[in-house]
């Protein structure tokens, strides 16, 4: 595992007799974005949850190169170690920002929470970091004390991103981050994500059913159908020259704008 950041092997998750994802394998390098595409029921969200440890996989390994402790199998980590990893080195952006935010506390507190959770005890510094990140995700810093309830969907999503990135994670999982947003709002969010990926050398696994999002953001793409990976390769290659019948079906279904 020379310089890969993440290596998934044989990941399988069943719900009763239904195979949600089966024998999934892929690698991820620093600074690269991998899109996981497929229709509903393809297993992409289950895959995301299994890789991040939110559901317990039935088989497989998720090898992650930590900052100081070498390569670990995330699925074998203790719960406290996994939670610490999720809080510091990983991020998870939910499709619905309400699932990834604390709606009852201010925007500043939402961003500062991870810092406080890892022991930061200086109010001024925490607030400063929150202001900085609000600026980076293009939310007016005047809104630092407002509750996310009062934000638009796009703003909530950008707040969720800031909340995840404040501790400088190296790997971020995103589940349909642009779902439910207006087209112009999507464009703004995608542009922001592109910038952040480049600036921060982030590795991202992004689950999406929208191939346009995949083309814009990702370097490589993984096509899933009924829980299995049917094609894995360069994004532009899969979109321009899909090999697998299901990939061809997906690509053919994109409306030409």
């Amino acid at each position: 595992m020379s310089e890969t950041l993440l290596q998934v092997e044989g990941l399988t998750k069943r719900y009763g007799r239904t195979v949600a994802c089966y024998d999934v394998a892929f690698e991820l390098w620093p600074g690269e974005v991998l899109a996981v595409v497929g229709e509903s029921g393809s297993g992409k969200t289950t895959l995301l949850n299994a890789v991040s440890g939110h559901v317990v996989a039935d088989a497989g390994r998720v090898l992650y190169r930590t900052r100081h402790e070498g390569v670990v199998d995330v699925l074998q980590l203790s719960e406290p170690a996994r939670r610490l990893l999720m809080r510091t080195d990983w991020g998870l952006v939910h499709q619905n920002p309400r699932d990834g935010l604390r709606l009852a506390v201010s925007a500043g507190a939402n961003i500062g929470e991870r810092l406080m959770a890892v022991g930061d005890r200086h109010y001024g510094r925490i607030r400063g970091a929150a202001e900085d990140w609000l600026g980076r995700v293009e939310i007016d810093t005047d809104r630092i004390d407002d509750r996310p309830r009062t934000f638009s969907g796009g703003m909530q999503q950008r707040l969720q991103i800031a909340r995840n990135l404040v501790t400088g994670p190296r790997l971020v999982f995103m589940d349909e981050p642009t779902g439910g947003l207006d087209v112009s709002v999507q464009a703004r969010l995608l542009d922001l994500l592109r910038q952040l990926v480049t600036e921060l050398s982030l590795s991202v696994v992004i689950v999406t059913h929208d191939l346009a999002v995949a083309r814009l953001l990702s370097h490589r793409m993984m096509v899933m159908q009924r829980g299995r990976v049917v094609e894995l390769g360069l994004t532009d290659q899969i979109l321009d020259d899909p090999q697998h019948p299901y990939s061809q079906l997906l690509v053919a279904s994109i409306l030409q704008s």
Partner: protein
Amino acid sequence: MHNPVINLEDVRKSFTLHLQDGVVIPVFEAASLAVGRGECVVLTGASGVGKSTLLKLIYGSYKPLGGRLLLRQEDEEIDLAHATPHQMLEIRRRTIGYVSQFLRCVPRVPAVDVVAEPLLALGVARVAARERAAALLRRLRIPERLLALPPATFSGGEQQRVNIARGFIHGYPLLLLDEPTASLDTANRGTVVALISEAKAAGAAILGVFHDPDVRDAVADRLVDIEALRAAA
């Protein structure tokens, strides 16, 4: 040819349309072609028979089904047919530049940043990269006020020039040019010819498709008929 930059040996390519009962469209059976340092090879032939396809096979946008595509990258020789996607990304960063016919516009990114991006990916400092990008865009006669605007609203010719600038901003050892002068006026066509000549003089290998006969004559060291490549077996 001694030490070509790119050497295609018996490359096979066809498209299988699974959505149309698996109809197979053959393109190449055993295409072979080599391009050396400082050489510009121009593909000729009718439209739609495979010129762009050949460029895309080399760039990795299309997947070759057989044969070898040997790329010389510094001291190594890499068979692009078996390069992993991750390797291809690295190869595209450093070695192969591609000017396609269409500029895919990322919303909201200013033209100067679109052009500077390949340099940033190679670790050039942002300020220096933007300066070089701006200089190249000015050379291609893009009006100053457009440099900070996203190209989505530009004219076809302006978008094409942004595309060209992006392809020439870094000294790629191998340049793939697909109709780079299609929407350009005489003056800008001349600039593109100059850029190509400068690239050749710096040792780049160039494989291109040019419809304009004047441009073709000005840059081509060798002409290769695409039909001949297709017929080879």
